[in-house]
């Protein structure tokens, strides 16, 4: 049984179905990205898992138990939700409060402030914090009970490139300690460099759940072509029934063809080709393909 198990989870808000028969699992020790467009049901699913939202049907369990049934939840699961720090409290005050709730010594607060590099701002009120600082404080809060499972809702949201890099290293470090991490995100390119597995949802339904490598493996589906005669070559390939999905300057991306077939056509047409390479789909491509398809299908 997966460590985190979402099983036929459904949640209705009145007439609106926010989560629709969702099923997936997160294995122990993995970092899993939970992706979906705005309003797709990510936050509702995570909140159901954390017992904050009561599902209409189905189950959401951690190590076989509903969150509410965990004996000492803050020591099992650490959660980072949207800004949950009181703006009039200092960073240290907010963490001291969490330490008291978790029943951990106050020394843990200083340890976490150091870990998330907020020591210098420890005694400042969080109302004046930047989004990045609030995210770091949220991460520190999630770690207060030294939990083995982390549920993070949009941890990269609003971070600058330096912050995202810091977060990536930070999460990798946590995973190396054997923790299981489920994180939702919109910053797809950064998730791609951080996660092991990907769960993509749309309109409250599971679209795909797969290891990152499997999901993004192009397998020759697309070929990247570099040619000074890109315009003419695009015409030739198109006439041959190949799908030129993108053209930027001297570069083409061609779907439904092999490198050899493209090279032969270019040779026959006496067009110069400087480079041919298989292109793996980026996670962003996969995400957009999957979610766009789903929305279109629903509209149809």
């Amino acid at each position, binding site marked *: 049984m997966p460590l985190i198990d979402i099983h036929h989870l459904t949640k209705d808000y009145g007439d609106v179905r926010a989560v629709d028969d969702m099923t997936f699992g997160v294995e122990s020790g993995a970092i899993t990205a939970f992706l979906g467009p705005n309003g797709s049901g990510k936050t509702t699913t995570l909140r159901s898992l954390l017992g904050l939202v009561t599902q209409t049907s189905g189950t959401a369990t951690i190590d076989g138990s509903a969150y509410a049934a965990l004996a000492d939840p803050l020591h099992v699961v650490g959660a980072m939700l949207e800004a*949950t720090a009181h703006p*009039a409290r200092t960073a240290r005050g907010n963490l001291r409060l969490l330490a008291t709730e978790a029943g951990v010594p106050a020394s843990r607060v200083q340890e976490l402030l150091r870990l998330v590099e907020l020591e210098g701002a420890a005694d400042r009120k969080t109302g004046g914090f930047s989004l990045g600082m609030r995210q770091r404080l949220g991460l520190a809060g999630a770690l207060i009970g030294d939990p083995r499972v982390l549920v993070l809702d949009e941890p990269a949201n609003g971070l600058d490139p330096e912050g995202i890099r810091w977060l990536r290293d930070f999460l990798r470090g946590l995973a190396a300690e054997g923790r299981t991490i489920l994180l939702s995100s919109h910053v797809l390119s950064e998730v791609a460099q951080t996660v092991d597995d990907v769960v993509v949802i749309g309109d409250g339904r599971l679209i795909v759940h797969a290891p990152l490598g499997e999901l993004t493996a192009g397998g020759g589906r697309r070929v990247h072509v570099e040619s000074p005669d890109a315009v003419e070559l695009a015409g030739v390939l198109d006439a041959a029934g190949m799908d030129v999905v993108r053209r930027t300057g001297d570069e083409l991306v061609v779907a439904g063809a092999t490198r050899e077939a493209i090279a032969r056509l270019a040779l026959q047409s006496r067009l110069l080709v400087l480079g041919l390479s298989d292109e793996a789909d980026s996670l962003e491509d996969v995400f957009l393909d999957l979610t766009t398809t789903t929305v279109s299908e629903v509209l149809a």
Partner: protein
Amino acid sequence: MIRLIRTELMQLHTLRSTYLVALATVVIAAVVAWADLSDAGTKGLSTPGELRDALVMAPGLVTAMFAALFAASRTAGEYRHHTIAQRALASPRRWRLLVARLATYGVISALVGVAAFAASYALAGPVVGAEGMQLSLSSSDLLVIAGEVAAAGGLFAMLGVSVGFICRSPAPAMIVVFGGFIVEKIVGGFIGGAADYLPFALLNSALDIDATIAPASATLALAGVAATVAAGSAVLLRRRDVL
């Protein structure tokens, strides 16, 4: 439960406004009592009973009102600042959160009430004495009054906590507390003797000011009202999603 109560105390301790509100309650109660009793000896404020009522009214009513408003605002503020999610994560059985908060705010407000009464008495004694009169209160009288003020403050704080959990937004919660007073005055005119059992009427009786019910009975009835409202908020707290 002890951990939850410690958390509540830590929550109060880590916000400066807690101390400001407590100090304001004590100071305002004392100043109002001093102002009232500076008219000692005039008509309506000359008998020991009238002097006693004037001494009790300020700390009793100020503490009760401030405690209810503070508790309602602080509790509803948890939703405004989304900190309620963290509280619910720490205590998934949410009724325990309610109980911890009721106990903490109840006791703290009772203590503030006692401090407000002590400050009022300390200021009022010399003022009344300057008018050639005496408060004529024995030690046991003082203890009883302190207990009444403490109970009033504590029970109104509990009402405020419950209102905060029900309303989930500070402004409506405070309007309910203020509005409750006005609505009670209006409704009271239509329901005859039952009006004596509405919260603010019970507060007066519990403080033994124009009491229509014996203070002890009024305090018990007020505790019943607070428990009923708390039970309602517990049901809502359990049923509602934390968004």
